[in-house]
């Protein structure tokens, strides 16, 4: 008798209790996003596709010091230096192999010039392997740009080094 009562209890009380939880969810707002149309905003620290920063005047920040390549645990960065018309050092070739890159953000942390950053872009699928080697041209932010995120550092560096002539 007891067993029958328990079995009935299971069927009529415990199981519907679980089903009720499921049923309640029918009327809740969905938590999923309609992805390709709607996108989740990324947090400021999100580590996505890399970009190379410029100074306000459009010159490149990267001095091709090689620290990012040294910090990279996946050995994904390759670079060759050159000098620009003012005798300043900059990268002639700067490539990141995105198929090797693990998006750890070590390059961003290592960079002493605040030149390389990991942006918020995460949709960069492609159908051939060569297109995953990102070159300097692809990574440099366009100039002129609308936002000026590093004005303070720029002024300071210019002041400290007394640079007056503006590169084109």
């Amino acid at each position, binding site marked *: 008798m007891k067993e029958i009562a328990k079995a009935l209890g*299971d*069927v009529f009380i*415990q*199981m519907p*209790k*679980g089903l*009720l*939880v*499921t049923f309640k*969810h029918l009327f809740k707002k969905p*938590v999923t996003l309609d992805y390709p149309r709607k996108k989740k905003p*990324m*947090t*400021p*620290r*999100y*580590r996505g596709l890399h970009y190379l920063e410029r100074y306000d005047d459009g010159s490149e920040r990267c001095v091709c010091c090689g*620290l990012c390549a*040294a*910090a990279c*645990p996946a050995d994904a960065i390759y670079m060759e230096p050159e000098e620009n018309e003012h005798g300043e050092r900059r990268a002639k070739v700067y490539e990141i192999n995105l198929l090797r890159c*693990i*998006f*750890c*953000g*070590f390059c961003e*942390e*290592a960079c*002493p010039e*605040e030149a390389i950053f*990991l942006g918020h872009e995460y949709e960069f699928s492609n159908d051939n392997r060569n297109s995953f080697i990102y070159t300097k041209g692809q990574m440099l932010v366009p100039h002129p740009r609308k936002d000026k995120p590093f004005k303070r*550092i720029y002024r*300071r560096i210019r002041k400290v080094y007394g640079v007056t002539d503006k590169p084109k």
Partner: protein
Amino acid sequence: MSAERKTMTINMGPQHPSTHGVLRVVLELDGEQVVNAQPHIGYLHTGIEKTMENKLYYKVIPCTDRMDYLAPMSNNLGYCLAVEKLMGIEVPEKVKWARVCLAELTRIKSHLVWLGTHSIDLGAMTMLLYTFRERESIVDIYEACGGQRMMTTYIRIGGLSKDLPPDFDKLVRKVLETIPSHLRDYEDMLTNNEIFINRTRGVAVISADDAVNYSLTGPMLRGSGVNYDVRKANPYSGYENFDFDIPLGKNGDAYDRYKIRLAEIRQSLRIIQQAIDGMPEGPYRAHVPGVVLPPKEDVLYKMESMIFHFKIITEGFKAPFGAVYQAIESPKGELGYYISSDGSNKPHRVRVRPPSFVNLAVLPKLVEGALFSDVVCAIGSIDIVLGEVDR
């Protein structure tokens, strides 16, 4: 006259949905009954331990993320604690508290994924969707901290990679608020559910003696009633300051392990509450010139920091000759890092004691004489992550 006993050998996996990855189990069946079960591992072997030997100490951290990818912060923490022990680094108080907070969030996250996948193995489809919804809020915290949702690489040698995000407190409190009510939902759905009980109670039983002999750890061990938790036995990262209980089971079956994991989530919430309430102020990295990277703000303006920054990044730091072992309680059990150093800037050998690997070895014992369908439940209740098993 005795009829010859005929058994059949079949392969379960490596592409079986309920082996949680690429585990292959060779089952010897007598009708529906399992006579023998041999787990075959190595399909996901990536040579992580070997890779670690060829990397500077700080570059190893991304490797650790990729072992137990469901609990990246625990892996980071274990490795960093081991290196800190080797180097004799004392981290600031804030770092300890933040690490405890993050490690416990990781435990909740890992247990939630376990709960979802385990119940989907047993036929409760909706659970996975619910647990992933809750997991999302924790993954959001990861993203706010380290910038990535799974491979955080947030905990570093001597501290954290960046300071805690400004909205950390708010995000964590939201998790603390929402998860208890969801846990009640899960209990409504599973704890007294007749089907779930029938599938798990008395299944995959392991006695306390056997559990100790197989050197099981984590919920697998505590499910059998053995009170061993590294957080209490050998406190690390300031766990001795926190007030929490160790849930214990009695029967050592899959049902007890389920209850323990749910209870552990509650205990973790308790720890997080204490950690977030008492989070001290202070630096997010230890000040150890030449070993721990100076904060980025200093690198830009101070010559000395800049020099150390260059030195550490290009050549790392030299560890003293010796070996250390540091164990932590990861969501799956005792996760240990044994690092032996030959005095150079790369580890001579890093040996990981992965809880999933050790726990998986008990599978033949768990399913001996059980029904075929219970193998799924047994594998699920061990809570393996193949990335960690194969490394």
